[in-house]
Each structure stands twice: as structure tokens, then as C-alpha cells.
């Protein structure tokens, strides 16, 4: 067999615009190029000069799927920079909001983007014809989680209640109770979802990846923690010493390495690094003979489904202990400073870093999960596709897309700017 070149100009069912080129020569994989061709969006450029009160509003607009994570990371970084203490209940409410948005994002990804691959369906729209109840179930969970996010955030996409130091509105006990009730209501559906996604047949490909996630030694943190990788552990403030960004000429998204190595972030990383799954979730996974840590890349999807169960239970606990929030006037002590915040977005670690002078941003750096994952995606594609290089173009195309989609890449995030040192 001679040279083959497989190209997908626009990978569908991922957020943003990316392409893939696979070159195969005599049944041997030569090259894989995972390129991003979304237009650049200059966020870090126009954040400069903006008042600190607007930064999280802008950050939310980096990505429509992880808006909650971006807004939270941003507002937290500003609070760190200005030394503002956030009341405990506000932190808890933020965590609740993050959890419901996580579940929402996972459901969107699992049912709408990933599932059609495993059901031989073209899209979720064709699934509405063949598996109407399944789709309805997905809609029900999505609707419920969106509702929960908007209970705290005002709306699900681009929440509008966050402000530096807390929230803009009163969040009553009743509101929290409604959140709890809704979460309880959809919990059985989340378990069903997990069962479905644990039973799918995923590509068997494994690789000993470097994983990276937040870590606190007692749970699987989303909102706060140190950064831990398979080999090293450091506080978020030290990210620059370990995570180095670079660009390649065929992509508008920047990439990054940790201590010179490509790495993976996301649901699988979280579970691999934090052995604190709640019993219900762990047992559920084990009943399908899946346990963590696990090196099978495509299991990201299963990990997400398991996470849903875990975080649903976590959120019920948090909601129980959260007190009503009353907005207070925030005393901004200083208007200069530097702040870094790391948060777990649905698709992995997210870092926001600002310098603020006289209340205005003078420097912004944002590292998004997809930017962290890009090289890892490319490496794992290389690994997996070389195992199946003898297959037909169509098979390679489908399998490649499956693997890419498993990461739930968020391209819009990754191109907010390209910065070259």
C-alpha cells in the first residue's frame, strides 16, 4: 500500500473549529497533526487596561460551555490579587454552581457529542428518532442542571451574579433547598447515565500519560487545591515554574508542557490522581470492572459519567451545610496586586493569572484545559492510530474522532490568545 493522507477539515461535535491530518505510509503511521483554526480572540490583549470589576465578565465570554469555570477562576484570581476574603458560604455556593455546571457540561458532551459515535448515529438529532427516551432523559438532566446553575448564577450560560468578593444577589435558604431537591430528583438519572457509559465499548488503547489535576488529599476538589501531577506537586502560584507554554505553526491554539512533558487534564486525570471517589460511585464503576487509576484514554467518557454521580452526592452534602448568602458591601483594601487561581473546569485544569495596578489589569495570562491537552491528544492519536494504521480510512477517521471527542476539547477556550515569550 502506498501513501495515504486522511484529513478532516472540520471536526464536528466538539466545541470550536479544529482539523486533523493523518499521514500513513505503507501501513505505518508517519504523522498526526491536530490543528486549530479558530480565529484568534485576543482576550489577554483587551483585558489589559480593564477595571478589575469587569475581568470575570470578559473571562466568561472566552467559552460558552465552561463559562462558570472561567468566571469563577477569574473572579478568584482577582480576589487573590487584591487580598479579598470571600465568605465561606459564598465559596460553597460557588462550588455548588461549579458542580451543576460540570454535570451539565458532561451531559452535553456525553449524550450530544460522544454517544452518537457509540450508537452508530450521525448525531443526537438522529438519536431523537431512534432513542427518543434516551434523548429526553439527557434533556431532563440538562434542564435540571441548568436550572440549578441559574438558581445561584442567574442564568446558565454567562452567569450574572458573580462579583469580586461574593455574589451580587441574595441567595436564600429556599434557593439552596431547591437546588438540593432538584439534584436529588435527577440523581437516579445520573446513575443510569453512568451505567450506560460504563457499559460502552471504548477503544482499548492505553498509555502511561502524565496526569494533572487539583489535589487536596481528602476529596476530588474542583474549586480549590494544590496542583498535582503524576510526578510533582506544587501550589497554583508556582504554575509558571512547571508549566511552559509554546506554539506550533499549524495551530492558533497554544500548547503547554509540564517539566518538558505532555500531560492530560480532565475527568480521568482527576480520578487518577485523587483516590477519593465516594463509595456509591466507586462501587458502580467496579461493578463494570472499571477502576481508577486507569490508563485507557477513551475512558475519559466513563470517568465523566462516574464523576457526575460522585459530585451529585458531594453537592447534596455541601448544600446541607450552606447558609443563606446576603450580599454585603465589599471592602477592597488594595487596588494593586498579582493573583493566580486554578480551578477544575469540566474538561480539566484552568489557570487565570492577573496583575492589577490601580484597579486596572496590566497583565493577563489564561491557560485553558484544551490548550494543556492538545499535545497529549496528538501524542495519543499517534499511539492509537499506529496500532490501527492498517485499517481503512473510514475506520481510522471514526476512531480518531472518538479519541479526540473523548477529551471534550473546547477550542474556543484554547484560542483566546497566543502569546509568545
Amino acid at each position, binding site marked *: 500500500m502506498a501513501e495515504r493522507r486522511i484529513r478532516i477539515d472540520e471536526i464536528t461535535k466538539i466545541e470550536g473549529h479544529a482539523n486533523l491530518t493523518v499521514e500513513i505510509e505503507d501501513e505505518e503511521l508517519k504523522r498526526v497533526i491536530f490543528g486549530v483554526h479558530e480565529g484568534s480572540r485576543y482576550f489577554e490583549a483587551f483585558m489589559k487596561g480593564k477595571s478589575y470589576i469587569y475581568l470575570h465578565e470578559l473571562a466568561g465570554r472566552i467559552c*460558552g460551555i465552561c463559562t462558570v469555570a472561567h468566571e469563577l477562576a477569574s473572579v478568584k484570581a482577582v480576589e487573590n490579587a487584591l487580598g479579598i476574603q470571600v465568605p465561606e458560604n459564598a465559596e460553597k455556593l460557588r462550588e455548588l454552581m461549579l458542580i451543576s455546571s460540570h454535570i451539565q457540561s458532561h451531559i452535553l458532551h456525553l449524550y450530544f457529542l460522544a454517544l452518537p459515535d457509540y450508537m452508530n448515529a450521525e448525531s443526537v438529532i438522529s438519536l431523537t428518532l431512534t432513542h*427518543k427516551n434516551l434523548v429526553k432523559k439527557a434533556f431532563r438532566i440538562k434542564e435540571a442542571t441548568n436550572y440549578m446553575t441559574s438558581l445561584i448564577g442567574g442564568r446558565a450560560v454567562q452567569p450574572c451574579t458573580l462579583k469580586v468578593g461574593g455574589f451580587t444577589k441574595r441567595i436564600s435558604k429556599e434557593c439552596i433547598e431547591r437546588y438540593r431537591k432538584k439534584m436529588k430528583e435527577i440523581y437516579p438519572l445520573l446513575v443510569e447515565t453512568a451505567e450506560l457509559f460504563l457499559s460502552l465499548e471504548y477503544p482499548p488503547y492505553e498509555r502511561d500519560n502524565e496526569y494533572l489535576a487539583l489535589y487536596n488529599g481528602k476529596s476530588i476538589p474542583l474549586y480549590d487545591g494544590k496542583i498535582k501531577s503524576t510526578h510533582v506537586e506544587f501550589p497554583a502560584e508556582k504554575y509558571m515554574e512547571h508549566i511552559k507554554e509554546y506554539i506550533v505553526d499549524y495551530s492558533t491554539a497554544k500548547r503547554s508542557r509540564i517539566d518538558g512533558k505532555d500531560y492530560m487534564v480532565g475527568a480521568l486525570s482527576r480520578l487518577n490522581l485523587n483516590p477519593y471517589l465516594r463509595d456509591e460511585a466507586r462501587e458502580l464503576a467496579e461493578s463494570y470492572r472499571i477502576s481508577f487509576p486507569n490508563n485507557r484514554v477513551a475512558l475519559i467518557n466513563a470517568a465523566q459519567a462516574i464523576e457526575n454521580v460522585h459530585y451529585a452526592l458531594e453537592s447534596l452534602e455541601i448544600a446541607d451545610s450552606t447558609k443563606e448568602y446576603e450580599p454585603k458591601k465589599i471592602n477592597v483594601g488594595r487596588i494593586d496586586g498579582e493573583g493566580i487561581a486554578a480551578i477544575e473546569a469540566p474538561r480539566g485544569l484552568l489557570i487565570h493569572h492577573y496583575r492589577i495596578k490601580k484597579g486596572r489589569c496590566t497583565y493577563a495570562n489564561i491557560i485553558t484545559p484544551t490548550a494543556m491537552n492538545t499535545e497529549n491528544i496528538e501524542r495519543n492519536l499517534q499511539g492509537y492510530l499506529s496500532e490501527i494504521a492498517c485499517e481503512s480510512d473510514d475506520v481510522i477517521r471514526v476512531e480518531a474522532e472518538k479519541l479526540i471527542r473523548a477529551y471534550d476539547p473546547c477550542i474556543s477556550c484554547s484560542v483566546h490568545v497566543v502569546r509568545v515569550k
Partner: protein
Amino acid sequence: MKIGIFSLSCCEGCSVQFLNLEEKILDLLKHFGIENFRLAKEYNEMPVDIAFVEGTPTNREEILKLLKIRKDCNVLVALGTCAVTGGVSAMVNTMSKKEAMEVYGGFPPEMPVDPKPLDYYVDVDYHLYGCPFSKEELMELITSIILGKKYKDKEYSVCVECSLRENNCLLDQGYLCLGPITRGGCKALCPSNGKPCLGCRGPYEDANIKGHIKVLQDIGFSKEEIIEALSLFSYEKLKEVIGWLKEE
């Protein structure tokens, strides 16, 4: 009827908002075929009857894509703030090219194009305002199309809906709120949640922008603060007023 949802450079929050219609999508599918939706579909067809376009072109490729969509659809709907006003992306137009390039380390990854509203390039039949757009308004538009009604833009400000919700006025409390000049239709979501309006729906036709600038100055906001707020979402639509304010 065939519909397509297209995405240019943006956060894709509007696509997500479209999926957030949840079960209403099933109602929708009784009347429409969603033939083109890259976020959710493997096979995407053209032409379509109604094209919903989110985002704004930021490179030449995307401009060509937009022109092609316009050619291959009957009705083009600008979906969300980026498509309607250029959105936050257009803020880069407030800086000189040189300034923007400096952040890039001096070399751009491609020839950049200034983010502009879609109607700068093509005719737009309907606008759905907001970042993200309002689901109610989308359903209103779709219902109007099905029933053959005229869909009208709301020609009044956010204040109208805000006062109908009996909110405490944020301007009175000293916040920089753009409610009086921003197009209504969002049911005053942000002010109802205690956050001043940032003007994500852009100014409405009849807005008394200069009058509001005076009001803000009387409250005590500086020129810089007002310019900053005005340019957050609608720099392209408010360029002239911002220029006038700078001169003043």
C-alpha cells in the same frame, strides 16, 4: 424547513444556549430539520432555509464562510451579541494594531481582521440580541416564522422591564448601569440579579445615549469609566458616541 446553526469565532455559548432549549428542540424538530449544526452533527448540509449565525469573522476564511452562508440561505439570523454588534471580541478594535501585536510577541498567527457585526458584511434579516441571546426571543422568532408573523425588535430599554419587575434601581445605588440605553427583551435579567446592565444587547435605535452619559457623569463616573463600559459589548455600534465623548 431546514435550519442551520453556524459558528464563527466566538465562545459558542449561543450554540449551547440553542441546545438549552431542551425539550423545546423536540417541538422544533416537528417543524424544522436541523441540517447544519457542527457542534452537534457529523454531516452538515447546505443550503438551508434559515441560517442562525453566531460569532463574528476574525479571519478571511470566516468572511468567505459567512458570504457563502448568506448565498445559501433564505433567512439569516444574527445570533447573539458577537453577531449583532461584534461583541467583546470587537474590543480589540479599541487598541491600535501595534498594541494588539505586542501582546502577540510582535508576530500574528494570521492576518487579523477587525471583528465587526455581521451586517457589516452581509444583509441580516433578524437579530437576536444578548450574550447569550434570550431563549424566549428565539422561540418568539421561530413562532413568528412558522405563523407568518412579523418579528419586531424591541424598541425600548432594559429599564422598562426592570421597573416592571419592581427592582431597586441600580443607578440610584451608584452603579454604572447601561439599562437606559440598552435594548430590552432580556426581562432585565442582570439588574434583577443585582448586577448593573453591561449593555450586552447593544443600544436600541431611539436610545438617548448622550443623555445617559450626562446622567452617569452627574452620578460621578469619569469619562474613562463610561467609555470602558460602553465599549464592553457594543464598541462597533457606539464608536461615534465614544469618539465624541473622548473629544469632549
